[in-house]
């Protein structure tokens, strides 16, 4: 974002170099989260810590976090996918139709995952083979997927969702966490491990840092991008399933507005849109902040409509403060 005026001698000898604490951002997020939780528990007279509320919080966090994992990888490669919400709606509509046709839970889960992966593949092909900029390509599929939701659903609502879905993922607990939250955590950890310790993950970062250098070093950018978008599709498919567990109903608006929530979580978590920087711990914290803000608004009996204002404000302040700092440092 910042301009380098001197192209030849950009960094002179002895210029002070910026050194940042690697964990600085995560620490800041943790403090923010702590303050939010403290404020909300004080304001709600302890209602925050009831098991019902924590359960809701963990379930909704998990449903945001799972696609956010995929979104983090996509953004790390230097791309973006804005179709996630529509994709979630379409997968839910197709899966819900299977349920309505009497398919069992076990038979339908693969449908959710496969549909998600296939839709992710469409995005990937448009971006890689079609060479359409990611924003534009997924903007297009966003509206197409949403249209297909209508094709699948007509003007019906689907409500024949097997109750087992809710029981298994939302009601049942492992230790003190709902199953879906445990799954989300597990996925986050696996994703973090893959990003940190596997060749694929390091190539994701290399690509986002310097695509040209990566290509010259023999890394194949297209393969990495393919896995990123298909992975996001797969996770979105899974999130669609979980959404039906949280509230057993599919309607034409299912998933609208969802992508903004996901991108907000990832970006708040410190993953930079320019790629190559950020990670899963940040995404976890970003997701929790987004969801705690939403939860707090309910608990504090604030009009629910304030949630958007609060979220927008948090993003502007958080990103604005850090971007502005960059500008200052470059001028100083």
């Amino acid at each position, binding site marked *: *974002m*910042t*301009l380098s*005026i001197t192209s030849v001698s950009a960094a002179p000898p002895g210029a002070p170099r910026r050194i940042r604490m690697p964990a600085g951002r995560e620490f800041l997020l943790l403090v923010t989260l702590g303050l939010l939780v403290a404020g909300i528990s004080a304001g709600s007279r302890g209602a925050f810590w009831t098991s019902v509320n924590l359960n809701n919080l963990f379930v909704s966090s998990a449903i945001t976090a799972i696609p956010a994992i995929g979104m983090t990888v996509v953004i790390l490669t230097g791309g*973006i996918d804005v179709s996630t919400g529509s994709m979630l709606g379409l997968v839910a509509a197709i899966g819900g139709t299977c349920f309505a046709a009497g398919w069992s839970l076990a038979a339908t889960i693969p449908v959710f995952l496969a549909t998600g992966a296939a839709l992710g593949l469409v995005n990937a092909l*448009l971006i890689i083979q*079609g*060479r*359409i*900029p990611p*924003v*534009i*390509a997924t*903007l*297009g*599929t*966003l*509206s*197409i997927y*949403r*249209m*297909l939701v*209508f094709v699948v659903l007509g*003007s019906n609502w689907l409500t024949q969702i097997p109750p087992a879905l809710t029981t298994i993922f939302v009601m049942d607990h492992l230790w003190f966490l709902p199953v879906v939250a445990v799954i989300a955590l597990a996925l986050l950890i696996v994703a973090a491990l893959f990003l940190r310790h596997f060749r694929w993950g390091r190539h994701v970062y290399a690509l986002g840092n310097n695509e040209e250098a990566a290509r010259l070093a023999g890394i194949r950018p297209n393969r990495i991008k393919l896995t990123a978008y298909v992975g996001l599709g797969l996770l979105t498919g899974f999130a669609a399933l979980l959404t039906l567990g949280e509230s057993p109903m599919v309607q*034409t608006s299912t998933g609208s507005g969802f992508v*903004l929530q996901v*991108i*907000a979580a990832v*970006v708040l978590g410190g993953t930079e*849109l*320019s790629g190559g920087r950020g990670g899963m711990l940040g995404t976890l914290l970003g997701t929790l902040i987004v969801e705690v803000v939403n939860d707090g608004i309910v608990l504090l009996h604030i*009009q629910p*409509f*304030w*949630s*958007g*204002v*609060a*979220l*927008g*404000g948090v*993003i*502007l302040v958080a*990103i*604005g403060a850090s*971007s*502005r700092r*960059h*500008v200052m440092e470059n001028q100083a």
Partner: protein
Amino acid sequence: MTASGFDATRPILLLIMLVLALGGFAVGHPGILSPDNLNSMAVFGVEIGMIALGQTLVICGGDSGIDLSVGAIAALSQVVLGLLIHAGLPWLPAVLLTLSAGLVLGLVNAVAINWFRIPPIIATLATLFGYDGLALVATGGVNIDLTHASPRFLAIGQGYALHIPFQLLCLYLPLLLLFVYAQHFSRYGRALYLAGSNELAARLAGLRVARLRGAAYVATGLVSALAGIVGAARLGTARPDAASHANLISIAIVVLGGTGIFGGTGSVIGTALATAVIAVIDYGLSYNDFNPIYQAGMIGSILIVLMLAENLVGYRRSRTR
């Protein structure tokens, strides 16, 4: 006389598409080309068309310029207008105040992006949340009924001038002319183009890049507010959830109209033609008893097919060279 940066290829392509679309529908449903129907098509296109004009400037200014908050600005402005009218303000001052509100909302985007250096997609995502939220907060999520507002106000969205919808003849077309002038014939447009195509060179040639880009966001806030006002007058109601897909549709229209998303190219003329194409196809589909939601899907498909076609042709060319 040479205008700044005008390339006629895409507009001609769009004109052909427009004629084909009109012709196609005319063959299927001869009644569709009646004045009434044409007027309805126009009304369809006017509001999103206004927003797309502003969006064109934003994208043209470069630095991954994009405004996702346009629909939210339209909705919030509509709400402001509704509240002002309900508070007993005469319609004209209410409209003017609403327009200045739009200006301020656009200014917030401009400052966040050009002063605080937040990437445009993030900044306007945040203000999208914020403005939408404020609209809901201000109304409690309930629509504000404006059917009893002054008939003069309602005429903005329902009236006719010379048998042509008022908002088309008296608002959109003058606005279009103004934007064409600003983009292709003014100092501002020339400077914005150059800033969009090479920011560093522009700065070192003495252009004030941040101001140029900021002005585009402010202008977009203004036209989005105007679109919100027209919508409120057309439906006789102010809805906090109005124009919720305006960001996606307006961006699609801009790209369809030939403006490159990397800045420094394109024209509001292309944007206007793309708006017309979209309005016709949209109306034709509704006329054929399609569900109105197909509008967005249709636009998305056209967008992708067009981009694919261009890229594939371009790729072929660059490989054979």
